């Protein structure tokens, strides 16, 4: 602003013409003096440029150059500030016209460097590799700016102090602000990148120095390595080092830059620009933290990482920040404080306790948050792995939980986890739930991820079974089972804790309302305190809510229970009863568990009936009676059994296991043949599981004919039942159940021959009915003598004791009658498919009891061709028409491999693939489907054509009330209809389904 303008603007205030003139003159004088000596010294007569501009000497110099009288006049006129403002204005102009361009000139090379770089990516690559490239430019520019500002501020200060001491501070501040404004307003876009690079470099440099110092300290401290302090320090050092290993060779660079950085930082502080770049610092801190976490924590689940990051922060990051920002306040007067290059002692000395004198509580807080957020972000992507490897990742899960408590990022975590679950396979199991619970004890997270879990779990047919087995498996101590036991008193639908009672008290200690820490504490391993279990039932609740219905679990449990009970030999139900009771507490009475109760009752009942039947049979045997029923068939069969009993007698130790068996046997031996036969037939080798089939899941139906001897066993039992439980009768599910048989091979050649003859004779007589049976087994004396002989030979004989399915038993029994059977013959006698026979026979072949051969090689088949070699052959044989396959009993089994047999005895069991599920959910589904189909067909018959929706609605009304059919969804109805369309029972015209107009269907 020109001085004339000042004067004219001032003039109206002064009406005194003369005074006005004087003031004008004074102003011109002052202004010229300022111009000449201070502002533009080169223009006027020179004054010493090197004059010390600061302090009192500067003031004295100024007083010497500025005409004081004129100044006084001005001040008297109240215009002293004019001079000051004039100076300020000039400085301002200089900043804009001179300092700003020069400042940016420092970065010209950066620009050319960028142009030289072929493209941006290369540029970015360059930056990434050496983030400190900019430090030189930055340092120079900052130093220049600082210097320029300082000079100008000093000039201004001199004038101000001379004329308007009160204003000095304000003016200086203004000048500084103006410069910052000029610079930052004209900053190119990259300016902030440079800042980022600058601060990164600064941090690295600081870290380098920290490291160097620490090394020195360590060298001096080698002796006390084992001390506790040393350990702590070591862990912190580790934390500090971690993640920078790959920078090892760059360390020296950092050292070089440390000086530059320090200079630049000093300038920066004096310029008071730090607040302006605070956001940059924040982002640098954030980025570094992120990098550190990624480098040190990613993939490390087995130990707590958060603490490590914290140690790093306290040891490295915070001291750096303190050095960077902490001195700023002190710097106000342009003093240099301790640079960041001289880390404060607390940062090193007590590294894992945050420096208590830290002046940045807010920075610390902010950083904690940033850190935890980063941590969560890193972990979030790994959540799936954490869940997958759960028991090993407790540490990580707990870390995550601690971080989440701060950041409340559950939402993102859930979303992220959902995503990865969708993408990856889910590891089924309660562990998922458990892991998530550690992360978030409130289960909110569980609820969030329930969505994808739900759809996934629903998509997997085996999960319900998994869950239910976990729930009921006490042997392996399933987690859910533990929960079931612990929280038995918490009904599933009521989550109010008041409803819970400490009923079982297994956990011992007093009941406490479930604390939030429960999940973690329990994982912590101190076990099953009742208080900690408060969350437990919730997993189940969660699981149930995933499936939307308790019935599903109950139904699955019913299936499993059925299978278990059917395969149970002991008919013991205690364990199941306990579990069922527990389940009932969870799932509520009635509903789908009602049938389970009946199933268990059936077993109890069966046990009673078995007892009664056994007793009845014994009584019958003692008090002879005229036999009922079709005598001929029975007696022949009975003969077989009688003989079997005789055999049982031989192995006396076997009989011992079952007292009444022995009784019967003795009775039989004394009694007349017919009675013996009958008694034998009805002997209680049979334990029946008598089921109320309406309450059991659908059993697998399979038609087959048992070996007559076996059939006779069942008939005997059935008759007893019919008598005892009149008017009830039994219908055998011949293919189900388990038979414990013992195969006895003859030890001696001679005996074998003899037996063969016996067999042969019997075979010949097979058609003969009654007579043949009585011939063979009728002579009690004969059989008893044979028995004694058998006992004598036991040492040389071999026994094979096995538990097999009735089909297997039946098959092998046929070999007792005849040594050789073709596949077709077997299929015929058994009344089952040849394929099935072949499959089942594979078991006996594998057991080395039977050899399978093709008829052509039948004669040449040596007895050595047994066991594995044959079974290896079998598949290829099965590939061909199997009709010609011949099975041949290996009589010499004992001699070749008595030892092997002995071994096998230990491992009695069935082949895996022979263990077909007695009950299956498929069958159940099919059954329900059939029900629906009948409804649909009936409906269409009654109402004519209907739309899917109408059919669905009606179905729901019809079927809805009874069973879980409320779950019937529209798509399922469509599926049913489509199936009917495919079967050509129904046709669809214009969206309306109707029966295909054939009279046959209208009847339905």
């Amino acid at each position, binding site marked *: 602003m020109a001085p004339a303008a000042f004067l004219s603007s001032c003039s109206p205030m002064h009406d005194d013409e003369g005074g006005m003139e004087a003031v004008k003159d004074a102003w011109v004088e002052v202004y010229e003096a300022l111009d000449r000596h201070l502002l533009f010294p080169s223009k006027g007569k020179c004054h010493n440029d090197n004059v010390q501009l600061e302090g009192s000497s500067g003031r004295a110099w100024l007083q010497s150059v500025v005409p004081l009288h004129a100044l006084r006049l001005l001040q008297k006129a109240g215009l002293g500030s004019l001079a000051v403002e004039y100076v300020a204005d000039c400085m301002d102009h200089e900043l804009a016209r001179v300092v700003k361009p020069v400042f940016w000139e420092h970065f010209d090379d950066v620009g050319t460097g960028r142009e030289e770089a072929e493209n941006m990516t290369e540029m970015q690559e360059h930056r990434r590799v050496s983030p400190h490239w900019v430090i030189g430019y930055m340092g120079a520019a900052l130093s220049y700016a600082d210097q320029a500002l300082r000079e100008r501020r000093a000039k201004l200060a001199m004038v101000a102090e001379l004329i308007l001491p009160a204003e000095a501070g304000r003016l200086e501040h203004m000048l500084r602000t103006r410069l910052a404004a000029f610079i930052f307003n004209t900053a190119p876009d990259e300016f902030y990148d440079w800042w980022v690079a600058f601060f990164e470099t600064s941090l690295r440099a600081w870290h380098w120095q920290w490291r160097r110092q620490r090394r020195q300290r360590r060298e001096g401290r080698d002796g006390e390595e084992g001390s506790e302090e040393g350990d702590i320090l070591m862990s912190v050092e580790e934390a500090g080092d971690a993640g920078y290993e790959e920078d090892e060779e760059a360390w020296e660079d950092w050292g070089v830059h440390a000086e530059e950085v320090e200079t630049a930082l000093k300038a920066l502080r004096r310029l008071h620009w730090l607040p302006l770049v605070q956001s940059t610092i924040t982002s640098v801190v954030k980025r570094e933290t992120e990098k550190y976490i990624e480098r040190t924590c990613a993939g490390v689940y087995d130990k707590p990482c958060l603490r490590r990051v914290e140690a790093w922060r306290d040891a490295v990051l915070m001291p750096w920040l303190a050095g960077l920002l902490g001195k700023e306040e002190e710097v106000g007067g342009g003093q240099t404080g301790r640079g960041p290059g001289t880390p404060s002692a607390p940062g090193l000395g007590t590294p894992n306790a945050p420096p208590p004198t830290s002046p940045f509580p807010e920075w610390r807080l902010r950083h904690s948050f940033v850190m935890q957020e980063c941590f969560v972000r890193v972990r979030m992507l790994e959540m799936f792995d954490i869940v997958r490897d759960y028991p090993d990742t407790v540490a990580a899960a707990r870390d995550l939980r601690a971080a989440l408590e701060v950041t409340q990022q559950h939402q993102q975590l859930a979303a992220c986890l959902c995503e990865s679950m969708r993408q990856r396979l889910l590891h089924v199991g309660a562990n998922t739930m458990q892991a998530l619970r550690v992360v978030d004890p409130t289960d909110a997270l569980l609820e969030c991820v329930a969505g994808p879990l739900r759809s996934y779990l629903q998509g997997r047919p085996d999960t319900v079974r998994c869950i239910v087995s976990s729930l009921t498996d006490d042997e392996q101590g399933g987690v859910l089972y533990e929960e079931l036991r612990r929280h038995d008193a918490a009904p599933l639908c009521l989550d109010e804790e008041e409803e819970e009672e400490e009923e079982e008290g297994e956990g011992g200690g007093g009941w406490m309302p479930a604390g939030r820490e429960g999940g973690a504490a329990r994982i912590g391993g101190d076990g099953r305190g009742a208080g900690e279990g408060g969350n437990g039932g919730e997993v189940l609740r969660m699981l149930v809510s995933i499936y939307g219905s308790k019935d599903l679990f109950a139904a699955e449990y019913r299936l499993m229970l059925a299978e278990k009970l059917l395969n149970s030999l002991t008919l013991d139900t205690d364990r199941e009863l306990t579990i069922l009771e527990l389940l009932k507490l969870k799932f509520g009475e009635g509903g789908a568990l009602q049938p389970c109760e009946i199933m268990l009752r059936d077993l109890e009942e069966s046990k009673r009936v078995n007892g009664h039947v056994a007793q009845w049979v014994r009584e019958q045997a003692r008090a002879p009676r005229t036999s009922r029923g079709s005598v001929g068939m029975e007696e022949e069969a009975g003969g077989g059994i009688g003989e079997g009993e005789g055999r049982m007698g031989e192995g006396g130790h076997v009989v011992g296991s079952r007292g009444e068996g022995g009784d019967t046997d003795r009775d039989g031996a004394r009694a007349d043949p017919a009675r013996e036969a009958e008694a034998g037939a009805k002997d209680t080798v049979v334990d029946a599981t008598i*089921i109320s089939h309406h309450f059991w899941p659908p059993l697998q139906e399979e038609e087959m004919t048992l070996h007559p001897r076996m059939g006779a066993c069942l008939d005997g039992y059935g008759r007893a039942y019919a008598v005892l439980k009149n008017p009830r009768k039994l219908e*055998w599910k011949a293919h189900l159940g388990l038979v414990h048989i013992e195969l006895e091979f003859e030890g001696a050649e001679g005996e074998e021959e003899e037996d063969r003859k016996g067999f042969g004779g019997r075979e010949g007589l097979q058609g003969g009915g009654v007579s043949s049976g009585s011939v063979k087994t009728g002579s009690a004396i004969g059989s008893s003598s044979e028995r004694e002989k058998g006992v004598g030979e036991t040492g040389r004989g071999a026994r094979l004791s096995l538990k097999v399915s009735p089909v297997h038993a039946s098959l092998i029994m046929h070999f*007792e009658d005849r040594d050789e059977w073709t596949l077709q013959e077997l299929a015929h006698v058994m009344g089952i498919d040849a394929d099935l026979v072949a499959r089942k026979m594979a078991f006996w072949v594998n057991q080395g009891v039977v050899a399978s051969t093709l008829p052509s090689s039948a004669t040449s088949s040596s007895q050595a061709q047994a066991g594995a070699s044959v079974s290896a052959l079998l598949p290829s044989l099965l590939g061909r028409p199997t009709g010609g396959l011949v099975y041949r009993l290996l009589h010499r089994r004992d001699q070749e491999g008595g030892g092997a047999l002995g071994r096998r005895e230990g491992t009695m069991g069935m082949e895996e693939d022979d263990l077909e599920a007695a009950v299956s959910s498929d069958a159940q589904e099919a059954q329900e489907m059939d029900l629906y189909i009948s409804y649909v067909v009936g409906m269409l018959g009654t109402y004519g054509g209907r739309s899917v929706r109408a059919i669905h609605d009606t179905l729901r009304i019809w079927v809805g009330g009874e069973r879980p059919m409320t779950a019937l969804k529209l798509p399922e109805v469509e599926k049913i209809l489509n199936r009917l369309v495919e079967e050509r029972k129904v046709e669809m015209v214009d969206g309306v389904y109707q029966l295909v107009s054939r009279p046959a269907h209208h009847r339905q």
Partner: protein
Amino acid sequence: MKVKIKRWHAVATWQWDVNDERCGICYTAFEACCPDCHIPGDDCPPVWGRCNHAFHMHCIMKWLNSQQNANKQTCPACRQKWEFRA
């Protein structure tokens, strides 16, 4: 070789020796129980009338009790006079 059955755990379903599959009143199977019962078997047996029609005992009792005239109790299936078969 001899085979002997040491023990046989067999499976069977029990049935009432009835001609019909279902009770004509509640229309559930005889082996299942009537709607008022939970446990099948002896607790909820079928009974026969002289007309040879069988019903759940509980079902027919309910029916008979609902009949206005105690002297004219009829079989719900054939309308003959209902008498329990001995």
